[in-house]
């Protein structure tokens, strides 16, 4: 026992001594150990570590798209509207959605009857809004095209709020909508939406709530 201990100590001392000795050397010297020529083995062991990577599941909960349609600006006629939308599907029932769109008001009845009157300047006719909404899929289901094709669809309602900029003024606006979504593929969807933007306006002298209803067609993609 003592013998073995002393031999270990001796080996350790020797090694550290070697370390000390080599401190001045530039770069490590390869240590070559003379070994008797090994017999050529019959089986070459080829053990490599197997790389196990589990592919991740992609989630497609986000939806972005663009829409176009007609917006009825109260007292200013029906005008084309263009917008963008982005949604996050939280559960199979609920989603959060943001919209931004722009339209331009036409002539009011007053202006049509009396062409000299200008209720709004040119820049004041710009109708811009953004909305933050919560949506609920009321009637999810499928639609069928002929015998062999089925598309997932849903009738949903949305409620939200945002800012409408009209007549060069920002107004707080509530919006209520109904929409119908058909998924053409897993990543492409088509929507038909009807939404009402309600805000208080005093453009014609009296404070009143104005309804601005839009009907739009959207194309969106999921990712």
């Amino acid at each position, binding site marked *: 026992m003592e013998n073995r201990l002393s031999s270990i100590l001796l080996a350790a001392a020797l090694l550290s001594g070697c370390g000390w000795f080599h401190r001045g050397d530039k770069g490590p010297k390869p240590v070559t150990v003379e070994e008797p020529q090994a017999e050529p083995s019959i089986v070459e062991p080829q053990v490599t570590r197997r790389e196990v990577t589990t592919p991740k*599941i992609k*989630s497609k909960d986000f939806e972005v798209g663009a829409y176009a349609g007609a917006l009825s600006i109260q007292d200013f006629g029906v005008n084309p509207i263009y917008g963008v939308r982005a949604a996050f599907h939280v*559960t199979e029932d609920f989603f959060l959605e943001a919209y931004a769109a722009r339209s331009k008001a036409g002539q009011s009845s007053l202006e049509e009857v009396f062409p000299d009157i200008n209720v709004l300047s040119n820049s004041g006719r710009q109708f811009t809004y953004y909305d933050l909404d919560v949506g609920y899929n009321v009637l999810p289901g499928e639609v069928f095209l002929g015998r062999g094709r089925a598309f997932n669809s849903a009738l949903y309602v949305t409620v939200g709020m945002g800012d409408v900029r009209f007549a060069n003024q920002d107004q*707080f606006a509530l919006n209520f909508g109904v929409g119908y979504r058909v998924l053409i593929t897993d990543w492409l969807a088509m929507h038909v939406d009807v939404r009402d933007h309600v805000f208080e306006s005093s453009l014609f002298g009296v404070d009143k709530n104005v309804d601005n209803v839009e009907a739009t067609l959207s194309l969106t993609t999921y990712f």
Partner: protein
Amino acid sequence: MRRLLALALLLQALHVGQANAAKHQLLELVVSEPFIEMHSGPGRGFPVVYVVGRDEVLTVLFSRTDWYKVRAPHGAEGWVRRADLARTKLPSGEPAPIPPYPEFASHRWEVGAGYGVYNKQNLVTTWVDFAITDSIDVEGVLQQALGNLDNRYIGSIGLRHTFVPEWKWFSPTVGLGTAYQHISDKVPPAPLEDNNQMAYVSVGARGFITRRFMWRADWRHYVVFNNLNVNEELEEWKIGLAVFF
């Protein structure tokens, strides 16, 4: 015509993107229960259109909310409920690596929006939260206050402490931070613009509605550093919904 061409090219590019995504290696799972049901859509009401038996291999294409689109051995595709897919196994026998729900107490990011009242004006608010620890968050808020006399944009950044983060339905919070507001007067003839630095303290609460949805309510007291002898003080309350990751 050129627009149409551009649209066609865009769609083509999107399609190529999808095709490339399809080449991405997909997860394969082995059914370990007697059978697994595939629905025709990602929702509880969609009918079961296909059943895959034990030891057969499912390819998981992607997920949407709590549903997973999968492909059966013979090419049939359908939607599997998260809880069902969680009971399958990897080919090596390990349990399926279905990512866990974000922990309500220790999630990292939170994004939300809501309604409020700021200085008696309607307020549209959005926020992003980053959790430093389970109970301390950095919150960044961007909001717009719309009133009869003026409109304001308010940006703020601050720290918030959640008292008992492990309380699921209701957990009180307090916060402290700095804010900046931009005011544009609505009243003619000369619209006035103004900017102020502010500081706030807040008291609030939050709770979880589902595994991915939460509500948050907040009351804030602002001190506006203006040029007058006495600093103006403002109040705000708001309530909103948020998702977390």
